[in-house]
C-alpha cells in the first residue's frame, strides 16, 4: 500500500512505516519531517508546483491518492457555501441541475481548470443567496445539536445501566458475606448443635441463590418492539396477493423418430434382445457399460427413420 514515498526525501517513507504523509491545498504530499524542515518559518512554497503554502494548511493524508484528499478539502469548503437541500427546490430537475453545478465547480477547482471563473461564480452565488445560506447553516447546526443530544442521552442510558448492574452484583456479594458471617456468629453463640446450624445455613444460602437467580431473570418489561410498533397494537398489513395459475402438468417427452417403437432400455433383457449381443466383459462393466446400452443404440439406429417421412 505504501509504495509512494515522500517526493522530497524519498527513502524515509519506506524505512519508517509509521511516518505520515501530509497533504496541502495544492494536492501534493510531503512527509512529516519534510514539512517541519521546509516550513520551519511557517510558510513557503510547494516543492512540486511552487504555490505559496502555509504550514497550518497541512493535513494528515487520509486517502492513498493525494488528489482525493485535495478534492475532499475543496468539497468541504464549497459545501459551506452551496448548502441548499432538496426541500429548497420546487422540482427534482432543479435540484439535479444544482447538484450538477456543484460538481462542476468542485471538479474545476480540483483539476485547476478555469480557477478564476469558478471562484467568481462562487462569490456571485454567495452574494445572491446569502440569506438562504445563513438559514441553512442555522438549520444544520440545529440538526447537529439535536443529534448530539440524542447521542448523549443514549450514552447516559448505557452508563446508568452499567452502574445498576454493578450495584446489583455488589449487593449480592454483600448478602453472601453477611450470610457467612451470620453462620459463624451462630456457631459461636447458639446452643443448637453444629449440624442443625449448618443445615439452616445451607437452606438460607439456597434461598439467597434462588433470589439472585430470579432477579437476573426479571426482564424489564417494555411495551415497544424494536421497530417502534407498540406491543398491544394490532397492525394490519396488506394481504399477500394470491396468484392463480394453471397447474403444471407433466407430459413425458415424445420424440418423433419416423419408425417403429423402440423397446425401453430396461426391457431389452426381458425381451430377449441381449442374447444376441456380445456380453460385456468384466473390464467393461467396471466403467458402467452394459451390453444393453450397445443393443439399445443399435435398435434405435435401426428403427429411426425407417418409415418414410409423413408429408
Amino acid at each position, binding site marked *: 500500500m505504501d509504495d509512494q514515498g515522500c517526493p522530497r526525501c524519498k527513502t524515509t517513507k519506506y524505512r519508517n512505516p509509521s511516518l505520515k504523509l501530509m497533504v496541502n491545498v495544492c494536492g501534493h504530499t510531503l512527509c512529516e519531517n519534510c514539512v517541519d524542515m521546509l516550513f520551519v518559518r511557517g510558510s513557503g512554497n510547494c516543492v512540486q508546483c511552487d504555490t505559496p503554502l502555509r504550514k497550518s494548511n497541512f493535513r494528515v493524508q487520509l486517502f492513498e491518492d493525494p488528489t482525493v484528499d485535495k478534492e475532499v478539502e475543496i468539497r468541504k469548503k464549497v459545501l459551506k457555501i452551496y448548502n441548499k437541500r432538496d426541500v429548497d427546490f420546487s422540482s427534482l430537475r432543479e435540484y439535479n441541475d444544482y447538484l450538477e453545478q456543484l460538481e462542476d465547480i468542485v471538479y474545476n477547482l480540483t483539476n485547476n481548470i478555469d480557477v478564476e471563473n469558478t471562484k467568481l461564480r462562487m462569490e456571485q452565488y454567495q452574494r445572491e443567496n446569502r440569506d438562504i445560506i445563513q438559514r441553512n447553516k442555522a438549520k444544520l447546526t440545529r440538526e447537529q445539536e439535536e443529534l448530539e443530544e440524542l447521542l448523549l442521552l443514549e450514552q447516559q442510558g448505557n452508563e446508568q445501566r452499567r452502574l445498576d448492574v454493578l450495584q446489583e452484583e455488589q449487593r449480592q456479594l454483600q448478602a453472601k458475606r453477611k450470610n457467612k458471617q451470620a453462620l459463624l456468629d451462630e456457631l459461636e453463640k447458639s446452643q443448637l448443635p453444629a449440624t442443625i446450624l449448618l443445615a439452616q445455613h445451607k437452606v438460607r444460602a439456597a434461598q439467597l441463590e434462588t433470589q439472585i437467580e430470579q432477579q437476573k431473570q426479571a426482564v424489564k418489561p417494555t411495551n415497544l418492539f424494536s421497530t417502534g410498533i407498540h406491543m398491544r397494537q394490532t397492525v394490519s398489513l396488506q394481504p399477500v396477493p394470491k396468484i392463480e395459475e394453471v397447474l403444471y402438468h407433466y407430459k413425458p417427452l415424445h*420424440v*418423433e*423418430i*419416423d*419408425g*417403429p*417403437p423402440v423397446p425401453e432400455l430396461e426391457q431389452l433383457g426381458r*425381451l*430377449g*434382445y441381449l*442374447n*444376441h*449381443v456380445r456380453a460385456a466383459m468384466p473390464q467393461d462393466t467396471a466403467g458402467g457399460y452394459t451390453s444393453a446400452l450397445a*443393443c439399445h*443404440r*443399435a*435398435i*434405435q*439406429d*435401426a*428403427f*429411426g*427413420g*425407417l*418409415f*418414410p417421412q409423413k408429408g
Partner: protein
Amino acid sequence: MFHNSSQRKYWIFSSEDEVEQMRYKANQKFRNKIAESGKPGVSESTFLERHEEDVLFRHYERRLLDFCNAFKPVMPKSVVGTAIMYFRRFYLSNSIMEYHPRIIMLTCAYLSCKVDEFNVSSTQFVGNLLQESPAGQERVLEQILEYELLLIQQLNFHLVVHNPYRPMEGLLIDLKTRYPTLENPESLRKSADDFLTQAAMTDAGLLFPPSQIALTAILNSASRASLSMESYLTECLGLKGDKETLSKMYDSMRRMKTLLKKYELPKAEEVNVYKQKLERIHAEFSTSSNKRKRGYEEDGHVAKEPRITEEEWTDEDLV
C-alpha cells in the same frame, strides 16, 4: 440420433434430379468463374462435361475406397463410410475442375479419421502412401492440411454422418429376437454388407435414411437366398394396417435397387482421356489459387520451387 441430425435436415434430398441439379450448378459455376476471369484461349471444349465429371468422380471414389481398405491400422467401416460421404457431399457443390479430387479424397479420409475418433497421427496417415518418399509424404500432408478447412467449410460444418452399418446390426439383432421364421439371419450378413458397400458408391446416402438402406440390404440378401421376409415388415414392424407406409417403403427400396443397378465401373480408357483433360484444366486455371496459397505460407517470398513439382505425385502413387 438420426431424427434430429443435420444429415436429415440438410443432406437428404428428395430425388436424384435434385442432386443432379446441384452438380450441374457447380459445374456451371466453375465455367462462369473462368469465363469472367477473362482468360484467353478458353473454349467450351476445354471444360469437362457432366458425364465426364461423373466418370472421374467414380474413379476417384474407387481409389478412395481402395486406399481406405489398404489402410494400416485397419480402418473401421464407419470411417470409410464417412469419408466417402464427405467426398460425395463436397462435390455436390463444387466442381472437380476446381479442386482436384486426388487431394480432396485424402483430405476426406483424414478428416473422417478425426471425426470418427479413429486415432491415427498425420505421419502415420501419410505413411500409408507407399509409393511416396518421406519427403513426398510430407508434401502431401501439407496439402491435406491446407485443404482441410476448405473441406469442412464446404460440408457446412455438418461433420456427423450416420452410416447404415449400425442400423444393419440393429436389424439383425431384431430379426434374431423377434422373427423366428428366419432361421439364420447371420447368413444374410455377408451379402448385406456387400450391398451396403455398393450403396455407398451411389447417391443412396444422399436420398435415403441409413436405416432404410440397411433394411433394403437385408431384404435384398434375403430375396437372393430365396427367403421370404415380407411378414417381418407387416408383423414385427407393425405395418400390417398401414398400407400406405408399406407401399412407400417398397417404393424407396425399388429406387435404391435401381440406383445400385445403374452403377457402372468406370472404364480405364475413358478415365485416362478425361484425366488428361482434368490435368490440363488444373494446370491452366488453378495456378492463381495455388500461388496465393504458397504466398501466404512463405510470407511474401516468391515460391522457391516451381509449382509443377507439386504435381509430382500422381494417382498411381495412391495404391
